[in-house]
């Protein structure tokens, strides 16, 4: 009983805290972000497992976490607004080649972040080659290059 309650409490707390932290908190843009996530996972594990290192406790915690995840995913499919509440929504930060500065500030995204994603994923060189940029719900920046928006002519 204790394992189930702890598992649920930790799952819901992490859901809330990452929702408050914002999309970019999950994106692991730097090595330190990865280290931070590893530290959080270690702290979470200790809070959930405590002194009970039995197989039963471990299995129950895994079942609780997965079952909660499945339940929420079913709910999100059924109620799209809930999905948006829990997972946030994508945010356009460059539209038609124009950076939307206010949105970038609110989403804590800099031009350098956009350029890094453009270089890594599309081999682009500068902002003029970026038609659209979207901060996705997982914190990654999706880039639509200028050339991808055009179509072939015969």
């Amino acid at each position, binding site marked *: 009983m204790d394992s189930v309650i702890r598992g649920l409490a930790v799952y819901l707390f992490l859901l*809330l*805290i990452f*929702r*408050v*932290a*914002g999309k970019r908190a999950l994106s692991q843009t730097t090595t330190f972000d990865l280290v931070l996530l590893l530290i959080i996972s270690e702290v979470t594990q200790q809070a959930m497992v*405590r*002194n009970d290192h039995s197989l039963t406790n471990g299995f129950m915690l895994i079942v609780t976490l997965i079952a909660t995840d499945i339940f929420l995913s079913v709910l999100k499919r059924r109620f799209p607004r809930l999905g*948006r509440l829990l997972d*946030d*929504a*994508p*945010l*356009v930060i460059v*539209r*038609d080649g124009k950076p939307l500065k206010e949105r970038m500030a*609110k989403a804590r995204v800099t031009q350098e972040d956009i350029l890094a994603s453009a270089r890594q994923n599309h081999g682009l060189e500068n902002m003029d080659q970026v038609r*659209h940029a*979207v901060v996705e719900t997982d914190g990654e920046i999706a880039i*639509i290059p200028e050339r991808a*928006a*055009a*179509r*072939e*002519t*015969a």
Partner: protein
Amino acid sequence: MTPVRERAKGLQLDEDMDFQRRSWIFQRVGWTLMLAAMGAAAAGLLGPGPYSRTAADSPGGLLRAEFNRLERAESNVDVAIRVRGGASRDGLIRLSVPLRVIERARLIRVDPEPESVETGSDQLTFVFRTATPETESRIFFRLQTAKAGRLDWRIGLAGGADQVEFSQRVYP
């Protein structure tokens, strides 16, 4: 010449800026609460710390308990008992601790080590030898709490000469 297919007209994206603005407000409120929680924790409002550290004196003035009024489950709870000089009998200090405290929190250590421990129906009596009965003695209890809730202490000198009562609240 075949016609040019139309250039894509923009992103097919379900964007809701009202929701997004509310999200940002929610995040900022959340950040403020997180900062407040950090400040509260540092100050000892969520466990051991400056606010939490306190002391309680017995009515007769022979005992003083130093403890944290707020503790956390699965962590060490340290309680220090000062026994005023002259409270011992035949060089022995006998302190009784309620069994209900020992049942709720695992006793890890007692410093100094008692000469003996006597059981009773609802209490344990720890017997300490003191080399200097006329001076103050300090006894440390370290326990580990298992569950959240309240720990109600009543530490007494043998024979009911004096006792100190205090409570600790344990966060989950």
